[in-house]
């Protein structure tokens, strides 16, 4: 099994890096293998200038102009990221504050003197990223925003284009139509617009991110679907998604173990939201009418906020969770009366057989608690819509 490491649309083709193999995919889904790079896993970028591709992993650079060949990088170290802007393929050098630009529309040709340095602070450059024709230079602890000034060396820092925050993971950097998103060096998720940035992760998201390991390998992408914009960030075995439309967070998981979401990289191609799988060598598409991840369980879990009333005992008579009915499947309810440390036995009710649109998911005789969190799960591959919940409860005196 291989990792789909990068997807990039150029012209009428989609290009994928599957393991070590660079593949060209036509709209009729025919594939052409374009060659192998030296590494088969790990961080990688593909960028295109309309005619040529550049590929960078953590060790080398490559270009494809009809044949896959090495880039003779203009520095002795290793690359740390790749982007493209205004005809220039742009590579940052690892453990350095320098970035280099190719000859115009020619990723095979790099002049060792065609470089610039992120010089507003002394930290090394983590990543170069082009966003709306602004060149973001995300360092380990600071970042700068440059633009194409048309000078001999075409990129220049904006007046005030300096932010005192850095980037933890080069592949966490992603753009939508307005913003740049990334995991910052304080392990918070940020959104940058213009030469400003703001934290979008909530303290609880920050807490959960902080509890993970492998932050430097975090990988993110943005996409839009059905009126919502999403920034999907995977860190280790956990996937967080920021809805840029509602500004709410949710998580995505896959498999019986609620593991990370399979999507590793993204491209919009053939009018589909395509994603590359992180370990099975396949491309999938986000399908709002699919209720599993390529046959893998997609367990929906909602644990609501605490039901309480001045720490008085509450007697829970009936809980009804309003699902969109008639879709089949079951809902599994359990609850915690101790702040999520322990959970009750699960209680399963039907959401409603297919076509039984008026069915209600109700649990009765739920005992008493001063402080209760209800949690509902749907494991079946069915449509999942929750429109509300109501609880018949009586507040006690004690």
């Amino acid at each position, binding site marked *: 099994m291989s990792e789909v490491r990068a997807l990039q649309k150029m012209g009428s083709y989609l290009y994928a890096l599957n393991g070590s193999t660079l593949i060209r995919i036509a709209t009729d889904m025919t594939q052409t293998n374009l*060659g192998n790079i030296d590494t*088969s896993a790990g961080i990688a970028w593909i960028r295109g200038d309309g005619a040529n591709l550049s590929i960078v992993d953590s060790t080398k650079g490559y270009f494809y102009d009809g*044949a896959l060949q090495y880039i003779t990088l203009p520095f002795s170290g290793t690359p740390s990221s790749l982007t493209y802007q205004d005809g220039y393929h742009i590579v940052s050098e690892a453990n350095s504050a320098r970035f280099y630009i190719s000859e115009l529309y020619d990723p095979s040709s790099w002049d060792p003197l065609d470089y610039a340095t992120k010089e507003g602070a002394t930290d090394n450059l983590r990543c170069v990223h082009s966003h709306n024709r602004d060149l973001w230079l995300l360092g380990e602890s600071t970042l700068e925003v440059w633009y194409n000034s048309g000078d001999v060396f075409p990129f220049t820092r904006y007046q005030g284009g300096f932010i005192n925050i850095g980037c933890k993971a080069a592949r966490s950097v992603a753009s939508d139509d307005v913003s740049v998103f990334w995991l910052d060096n304080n392990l918070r998720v940020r959104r940058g617009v213009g030469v400003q940035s703001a934290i979008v992760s909530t303290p609880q998201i920050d807490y959960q991110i902080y509890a993970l390991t492998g932050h430097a390998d975090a990988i993110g992408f943005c996409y839009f679907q059905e009126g919502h914009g999403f920034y999907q960030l995977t860190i280790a075995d956990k996937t967080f998604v920021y809805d840029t439309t509602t500004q709410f967070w949710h998580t995505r998981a896959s498999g019986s173990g609620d593991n990370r979401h399979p999507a590793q990289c993204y491209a919009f191609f053939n009018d589909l939201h395509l994603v590359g799988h992180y370990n099975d060598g396949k491309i999938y598409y986000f399908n709002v009418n699919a209720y599993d991840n390529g046959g893998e369980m997609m367990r929906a879990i909602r644990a609501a906020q605490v039901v309480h009333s001045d720490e008085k005992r509450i007697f829970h008579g009936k809980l009804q969770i309003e699902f969109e009915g008639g879709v089949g499947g079951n809902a599994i309810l359990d609850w915690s009366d101790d702040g999520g440390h322990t959970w009750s036995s699960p209680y399963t009710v039907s959401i409603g057989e297919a076509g039984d649109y008026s069915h209600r998911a109700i649990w009765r005789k739920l005992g008493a608690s001063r402080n209760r969190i209800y949690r509902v799960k749907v494991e079946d591959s069915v449509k999942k819509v929750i429109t509300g919940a109501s609880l018949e409860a009586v507040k006690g005196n004690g």
Partner: protein
Amino acid sequence: MEIPFVGGAYLGRSPNLNAQVCQNLYPVVDQQGGKSVLALFGVPGLTGYLNLVSGGGGVISVYEDSELGGLSSPQGSVMLLPSPATYRGYLQNTDPGPDGMVSCSITGASPIAINSFIHNPDSNTKGELDIGLFPLTIDGHIINSFVASKTPCVARRSNFTATTFSAYSDLDGINGNFIEVIKNGIVTRKTLTYSNGSTVHSSPFWMEAFDNGVIIIAYLGKVGLSTNNIIKVMRSIDYGETWTTINILETSGHFATPTLFKGSNNNLYISCIDTTSTNRIRFWVSQDSGATWTQKTIIASFSGTAGIVCGCANDTTIYVAHGSAYSASASGAYIYYSTDLGNTWTLITQATWRSISCMAVSGSALIACTKLTSDLFTPSAFRVQVSTDGGVTFANSLDPPTDATGPYPYNHSLRNNGSTFTYTYDGLKDGVYLSYYVSTDAGATWTSESIGRVAG
């Protein structure tokens, strides 16, 4: 009471942060940017779009029906274009197949053997066979590669521990010989075995094939000049699935350098040097796709150093040539031609040549690779020359780069399929060890083709 089930997640009070979960559900609000949550929607699932091909672990890369790609194999599949590689290697031969597709075999130098390379000049697409696919030792080599027929495409590889190859092969084929058959997009590797099931270990061999699934190979039944050899032929009528061994010369002798070639009328010919007593050039003909063979008259007897023989044929004329590729002191090369299926031969001596390594013919164009001086390893000594008068006179067609090192005399190859000629030799030029030329105008002009590899 209404409980906050559909509200935003990871926002409000929670005694234990881990208790608050909104997994695979996302809030939908009353209006864009609003905070009044109407519902939680299930996130979209993933539907399979495409199983990507992969080159991981080493992969077969061949073509079928003039297209590169789309192949699968029990070993893991598919074609690749030339990968950047730090390997260097030596071209062993080329073979232009149907639709101008060209197959080149490349033996690897240290540290690892590499691949057979395939080129479609029409589409300028290129592919390769990756020997890493198979659990072979690092000394595995593809010795010859042939584009044998349109369906299937057949390539041949074998695994040797030696690292050199010559016409006077002394290789020990300790691990058997293999061919790969591509049929209906499926690549399978076949281990060549004798009729009794034992594995064929042999010197490098030649291969020809037909579109109906018949594959013919010819090779030395034993290896090494110091031992008696016989010329063996193996024939398959089922795309390499099963093989029949044909001993075309039952008596053991001291044979070397067999060459198998096919005329444009699909007759098959084998010629070799026999040094059992005196040096003789032997010749066999098959007019039934290799099922039966007839030994013809000995083309010639000669004294002195025995060099390689090479041959080619069009519809009417068979050419067999002999020189001394190895001997710096040898002079002259000898082209014999027959227009009566090998019953009689006429000699044309090329007195200014030191040797002839290979030749090919299409229509009236007879192309030969020759060595003009006694210096074995100087590129300028070699020429590709063209004759349009049946081999009587030749004119220069292609001069190998004079600033290249090599080539070695045994690593020239000239093949043709109709009007497409290919010529390769191993020599270092511009950092690339592999030199490969294509001519589509009967040798008048040649185009140098890169295989995309980087010398290491």
